[in-house]
């Protein structure tokens, strides 16, 4: 193997690894915009709701309205500076990881509570309010409450970020799938092939156009989940088109059992994997190459192996690794960490192994409409 070949492959590995790292969106884009009036209003309303909640606690003898007033005052005194600080620092969040941001938020909240708490205690004592009590006990109460509220806030933030990531992955999947289908190399070469076949072999031309149509339809609905069998059929149709194009250069070893389990996977999971195999293992070589797809049924998982020969350096590489990262994310959204997609390298071949859990409870429909 030449050095250049090895270089290309190690580049591919790096690409795979980069794509494995999850969020591709920077943190500051995932979190709400704290400087926006809508967000500020929402948080103030939440803070007021919290104040009312605290004032409503039964068993406290002090008069409700004066109690609510004091608590509201305290809560807003903490909330508004906190919002200001978040707004000011929002531009610099780029440098922090999400957990660091959570700790930072908690620290800010506690510091502000400490400050406001100290002032509040002094004020309450000087005005002779009966509930003030010992300074340290008061402060401890305040800090504990802030801590709890902060933790709830972080939980809400995490949910928000997860939701954003999920929507992002879904949108990207649709886009990627569409772009992959409309990749000029595939689309126009397939159409060129079909145009020629209309003269020599009209039946094959018809089949090619139908295959192309089904792939396009699938790409337009790539946010849905389909059965493994349906996705295998799509992959088969894709390979039929590529075989028309590449003819004897693309050899196929398709080992799939007749009886397949009724598990659901994201639409167009397998086709991009095979497309990568064709692009890297077949298109770049003059001599024929073999793509092997082996599906084995285990007791609690289905494993699918795709193997292609190692190709030469790709002359005009496009963002093919994006597809892999995206498939990983879509599988993760559907199966959590129960589905795995790993690359297996050897001397002269490149393989991908996809493992899907058989248990139905893993595949929950929430991620896919």
């Amino acid at each position: 193997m030449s050095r250049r070949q090895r270089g290309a492959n190690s580049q591919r590995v790096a690409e795979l690894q980069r794509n494995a790292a999850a969020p591709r969106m920077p943190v500051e884009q995932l979190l709400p915009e704290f400087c926006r009036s809508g967000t500020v209003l929402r948080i103030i309303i939440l803070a007021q709701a919290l104040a009312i909640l605290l004032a409503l606690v039964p068993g406290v003898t002090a008069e409700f309205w004066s109690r609510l007033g004091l608590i509201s005052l305290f809560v807003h005194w903490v909330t508004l500076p906190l919002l200001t600080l978040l707004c000011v620092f929002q531009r610099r969040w780029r440098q922090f990881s999400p957990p660091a941001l959570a700790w930072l938020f908690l620290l800010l909240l506690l510091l502000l509570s400490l400050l406001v708490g100290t002032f509040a205690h002094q004020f309450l004592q000087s005005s002779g309010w009966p509930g003030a009590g010992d300074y340290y006990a008061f402060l401890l109460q305040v800090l504990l409450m802030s801590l709890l509220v902060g933790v709830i806030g972080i939980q809400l933030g995490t949910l928000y970020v997860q939701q954003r990531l999920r929507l992002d992955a879904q949108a990207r999947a649709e886009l990627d799938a569409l772009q992959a289908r409309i990749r000029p190399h595939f689309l126009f070469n397939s159409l060129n092939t079909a145009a020629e076949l209309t003269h020599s072999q009209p039946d094959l031309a018809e089949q090619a156009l139908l295959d192309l149509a089904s792939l396009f339809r699938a790409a337009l609905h790539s946010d849905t989940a389909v059965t493994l069998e349906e996705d295998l059929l799509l992959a088969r149709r894709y390979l039929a088109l590529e075989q028309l194009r590449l003819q004897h250069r693309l050899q196929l070893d398709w080992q799939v059992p007749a009886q397949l389990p009724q598990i659901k996977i994201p639409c167009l999971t397998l086709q991009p994997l095979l497309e990568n195999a064709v692009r890297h293992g077949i298109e770049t070589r003059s001599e024929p190459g073999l793509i092997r797809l082996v599906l084995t049924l285990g007791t609690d998982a289905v494993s699918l192996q795709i193997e292609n020969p190692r190709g030469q350096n790709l002359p005009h590489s496009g963002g093919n690794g994006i597809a892999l990262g995206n498939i990983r994310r879509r599988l993760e959204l559907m199966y959590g960490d129960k589905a795995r997609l790993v690359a297996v390298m050897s001397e002269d071949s490149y393989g991908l192994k996809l493992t899907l859990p058989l248990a139905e409870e893993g595949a929950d429909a929430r991620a896919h409409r």
Partner: protein
Amino acid sequence: MRVLIVDDEPLARSRLCRLLTQLGGYQVVAEAENGQQALQLCAELNPDLVFLDIEMPGADGLRVAAELGKNEPPPAVIFATAHPQHALAAYQVAPAGYLLKPVGLDALQQCLQRLGVSTRVHLEKQKAGAPRLSFRIGLEQRSILLSELFYL
């Protein structure tokens, strides 16, 4: 006109071949499925016109075209590719045409019609190397192309 077709896809080759036969006047002398083979066949057969795909295994179409350009005189090159984005790179190796797949008969015909049309520059360049006759009128030195002389 003797034509060589270079494409890694058999059906793309046979499409061009059929369209050329349909137009008439073109003789496809050989087909190549990769860059190396194309260069070798060109050296052997000396075609007048080469249809080149760009994305091929091994040496790609752009490299083949650059290599062919070194011949004296070089064959005319028409790129046939699915990618419009290679046009700029292709332009730098001076092709006679750039066809987008799927290739249609009209586009092919237009491309072939433009082929070999010589520009004024072309003519001027030919004049530059041609034999001239120098003469003198008064103090001024002038020259005229031998081919432009009228013999009385």
